[in-house]
């Protein structure tokens, strides 16, 4: 046999299971009900990064070298985001949801799984242009402390703003995105007046519960990383956080259709993935 024999799927599943159990018991991060296939991929990338031949070897290091865990979190969580990503979603919020939001004396909104903050800032800009930011507070939560730090800094590579600006325009932006940031050299920092309406904090849809009542929750491309049971737990938290007639926004390929909580929502604008709590 000259072929390198890959370990079989069952062994790898067992090793992954043990790693996730260790992480949960020692660090209280719960990845045990995450979708396995993409998690396996990200763990494989971590094995390469840490120079570990097997998941078991990585588990040993994670247990004995806590500093490794912070670095591993970067691989376990997905940090893909853009400002005004899926412009039609933001356009729909502006055109269809904002008229409802206007009727409230004060607003609380929640970006669940905010990663490095792009969506929270996009929402703040949208609210600002609709004259609602002054009475709004946006909670932006994630499980990765490093992502939260970057989100709070609000500094992004300047070349990303080409795409951000195009998205902003397609999302129905009223001005120019450059009104909201200051660029210097290779990076651009978002305005303080946006930041002071965003509260970045640590929250896990897998282990934490409701922390505030909000009128709008945006939770996009988070649920696809969960197994069905965890999806239901998470949607339950989002639902319980919403005030009556509050709005929920999901990712473009996510749906409430298969969820245990589907009956608690009205298909407000299904093509935009916007749902309204009954």
């Amino acid at each position, binding site marked *: 046999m000259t072929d390198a024999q*890959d370990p079989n*799927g069952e062994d790898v599943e067992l090793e992954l299971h043990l790693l996730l159990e260790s992480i949960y018991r020692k660090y209280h991060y719960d990845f045990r009900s995450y979708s*396995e*296939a*993409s998690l396996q991929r990200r763990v494989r990338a971590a094995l390469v990064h840490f120079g570990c031949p097997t998941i078991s070897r990585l588990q040993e290091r994670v247990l004995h070298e806590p500093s490794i865990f912070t670095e591993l979190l970067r691989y376990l969580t*997905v940090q893909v985001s853009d400002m005004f990503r899926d412009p039609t979603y933001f356009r729909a919020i502006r055109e269809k949801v904002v008229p409802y939001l206007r009727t409230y004396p004060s607003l609380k909104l929640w970006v669940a799984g905010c990663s490095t903050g792009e969506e929270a800032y996009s929402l703040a800009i949208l609210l600002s242009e609709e004259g609602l930011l002054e009475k709004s507070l946006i909670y932006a939560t994630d499980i990765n402390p490093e992502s939260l730090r970057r989100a709070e800094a609000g500094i992004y590579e300047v070349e990303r703003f080409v795409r951000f600006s195009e998205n902003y325009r397609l999302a129905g932006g009223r001005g120019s995105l450059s009104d909201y940031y200051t660029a210097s050299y290779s990076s651009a920092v978002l305005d303080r007046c946006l930041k002071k309406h965003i509260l970045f904090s640590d929250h896990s849809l897998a282990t934490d519960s409701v922390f505030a009542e909000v009128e709008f929750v945006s939770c996009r491309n988070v649920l696809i990383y969960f*197994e*069905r049971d965890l999806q239901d737990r998470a949607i339950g938290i989002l639902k319980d956080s919403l005030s009556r007639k509050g709005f929920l926004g999901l990712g473009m390929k996510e749906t409430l259709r298969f969820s245990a909580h589907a009956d608690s929502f009205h298909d407000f604008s299904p093509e935009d993935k916007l749902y309204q709590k009954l």
Partner: protein
Amino acid sequence: MASARRREVIVMGGSAGAVDALATILPSLPADFSLPIATVVHLPPDRVSDLAGALSYRSAVRIKEAEDKEPLTPGCVFVAPPNYHLLLERSGHLSLAVDDPVHFSRPSIDVLFESAALAYGPRVLGILLTGANEDGASGLLAIHRAGGQTLVQSPESAVASAMPSSALLLEPRHDVLPLEEIGPFLLQLHRTGWEA
């Protein structure tokens, strides 16, 4: 063939020319086709696609865009939506993901194939079609190493040969068939009950 175990799922991928290749292969399959097929085709990101709709036109098998956590049902062709990776779960479900592109591609064929190799091992039949980059080559190798069956469209019959050629460069023992014979080959396996 590496294993005599029964195949339970087909994964298929391609890039340049693959829409036409699928339009050649899929009409050969009957409505009661016994295996599920998960498919990744690279499309230009600006092209708003209804690939499933376009392919359904002449096909008896059901063809639909894959949804997250959907069961992998036999006789159905699941097409990865644009801008999402498609993966197979051990539980028999499909998953979508927005992780970074692989080989500049999302969906990526390697992502689908590697997830299939891990979740289904020898129960996978992987088919790599025409394409102009090397996405899919290492995924097909993973299926081969896991004891699955692997088939490559012959580079001579491909609109773009880079993809099948890359796969054969990594592993010359993949089966090779010209495009017109892939559909009949699947039909034959369907009739004989997928014993390799």
